[in-house]
């Protein structure tokens, strides 16, 4: 076991699979000698050579399009999109190509590839270095969407994603890159791509969250327990697609009071899917309406980003409102 930050765990995960499997190649903008703008790929070119970890021209469309080609022809590409905000030139390649290749070829061609990309706010990145676009992608049939919140899960989910036979969008909460640390097993291990993680046990209110919102929710849950004696069941979804639907419903039934938290905008956000599942499958267990705590339905601001991002204050407000309903 090593005590690593989330970004060190990503680097460790990449190294682990690159050592074990020669077909794994890592590429993107500035991932080579510079080691990526966040240093997720630091040292990989030096240690594995520039045929295993290399820089590309500045074209997200080119990065993802060539990854699809490599994937269909025996490589395991791990492509980095420098910021999730920059992924949209590649939207066509992801949504129309990578995600649909298996289906449209009747399984003759597949795209087992991973797109790693930092997402979310908290670094004063303004409109174009802060967005959370998971809903666009979770909506796309044929694409898996994974978001870790701990170093342990970052490594285990990343290895599972690279080994997965289908394309995976691996969204890394950049706000947690260096702010969380945890025990990470050495060597290869995987975390299942459709199992949620129970972060905190409690019988009063269920809170669903993922990525950078997990520590925010943990703080709010601790405050709710301390200030009001409200015990929250906190669930880290980890894989948005495929979703651990049974686990989600089970957690809702345990308390009958639900809060969903994400930093992406609310309208058609991932919280809407969770709310709908609960409404469809366990409304009879509900003691209060579902509350969503989300980013606002606006672009992401810069100076005022701390007002935009859900914080423990807003989560606590929602916990109390469903509890007191």
């Amino acid at each position, binding site marked *: 076991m090593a005590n690593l930050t989330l970004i060190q765990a990503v680097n460790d995960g990449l190294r682990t699979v690159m050592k074990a499997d020669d077909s794994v190649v890592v590429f993107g903008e500035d991932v080579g000698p510079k080691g990526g703008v966040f240093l997720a790929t630091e040292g990989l070119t030096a240690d594995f050579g520039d045929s295993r970890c290399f820089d590309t021209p500045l074209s997200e469309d080119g990065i993802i399009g060539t990854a699809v080609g490599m994937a269909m022809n025996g490589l395991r590409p791990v492509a980095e999109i420098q910021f999730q*905000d920059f992924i949209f030139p590649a939207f066509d390649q992801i949504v129309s190509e990578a995600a649909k290749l298996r289906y449209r070829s009747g399984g003759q061609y597949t795209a087992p590839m991973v797109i790693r990309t930092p997402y979310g706010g908290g670094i004063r990145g*303004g409109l174009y270095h802060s967005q959370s676009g998971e809903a666009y992608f979770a909506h796309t049939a044929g694409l898996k969407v994974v978001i870790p919140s701990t170093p342990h899960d970052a490594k285990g989910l990343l290895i599972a994603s690279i080994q997965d036979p289908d394309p995976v969008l691996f969204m890394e909460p950049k706000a947690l890159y260096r702010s969380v640390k945890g025990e990470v097993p050495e060597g290869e291990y995987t975390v299942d791509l459709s199992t949620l993680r129970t972060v905190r046990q409690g019988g009063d209110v269920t809170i669903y969250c993922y990525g950078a919102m997990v520590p925010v929710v943990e703080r709010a849950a601790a405050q709710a327990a301390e200030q009001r004696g409200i015990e929250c069941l906190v669930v880290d979804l980890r894989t948005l697609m495929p979703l651990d639907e049974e686990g989600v419903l089970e957690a809702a039934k345990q308390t009958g009071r639900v809060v969903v938290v994400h930093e992406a905008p609310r309208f058609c956000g991932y919280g809407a899917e969770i709310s709908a599942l609960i409404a469809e499958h366990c409304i009879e267990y509900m003691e209060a309406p579902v509350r969503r705590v989300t980013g*606002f339905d606006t672009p992401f601001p810069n*100076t005022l980003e*701390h007002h935009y991002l859900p914080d423990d204050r807003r989560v606590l407000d929602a916990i109390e409102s469903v509890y007191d309903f």
Partner: protein
Amino acid sequence: MTDMLTVLAPDGATKKGFEADLSDAELLHCYRTMLLVRSFDEICLKLQRAGRIGFSIPNLGIEATQVGAASALRKSDWIFPSYRDFGMALYHGIPAVEMMHNMFGNAEDSAKGRQMPVHFSFVEPIHFYSISSPIGTHLPHAVGAAHASKLRGEDTVHLVSFGDGGTSSLGFHSGMNFAAVWKSPVVFLCQNNGYAISCPSDHQTASDGYAVKAEAYGMPHATVDGNDLFAVRQAVLEAAERARRGEGPTLIEAVTFRMGGHSTSDDPTKYVPAELVEEWKQKDPVDRFRRFLERKGLLTPEQDEAMRADTLAEIDRAAKAAEATAAPGLETIFSDVFAEVPNHIRKQGEFLFDLSQRRGEADAGDGEFPL
């Protein structure tokens, strides 16, 4: 590489027969603008290191490209800038304090504190188009705006500036192709500064420079010494005249060098060989222009010193004024999403005001920008 136009030698001598088509006052304005850019960089670096602003983009080495290009434009022309084009705004009289408001993201910022620093947007005294972080997206915008000008029978020229990395973007292809087909009055200015963040040009393209790419689109092109203000000015003037005559777009490659990092968060020593920086220091665009002015008898070392002190003081005043300006109000999160605030966004705004009353304001935190 293709023949490169150079007018001004590193020692300040000009090519035989060259006559600057700028008045003495205009020449000094060019020089002072380049010093303003240097002062802006210097002060922003200090502010960033002190944690008073989050981020800045250094321009060291690129000043002559910016100012030379800007000097070839009229106030009625439009500039579609990259994030490394400060000098074009300053040349045309956009006050440094307006730019500093953006660096601090305060209530006076034209973008209302929504954008990162250096993402300027101005409409006066020249159109300096709102900057987007995604690369190359503004090239088709310039072409569309130029097409609109052309349809209205105006003689407006639209200059769009981008880096070497930008030539790999989808926007480059679409923009170049549309402009050539439509004969749009656009000047494409590729600032080849050697690196796209850490990616050197030979990893960006296999072609012989960037200008030659124009041939495939059926567009004329020129390659100029980007550290030579006169060469850049001449190429942009010629391209702008062609555009005004209705003869369509031109691609200009200005060969220059980013002598600093990509941004204040970047460490270029990890990927730029030190000897390369040394080599380019010898071609410093500001020194070169200063020597020209000295030869011409327009500037003495004493006047130069005074001008440097003066530009530094101007930027310092601008920074202090911007820092003293309040942050934008909470309502700016919710306005300008649409022309009118829709009901669901209004409710979210009301919720935030109410929450701030009930539970206090959000913590500002200390998010640090890595790029």
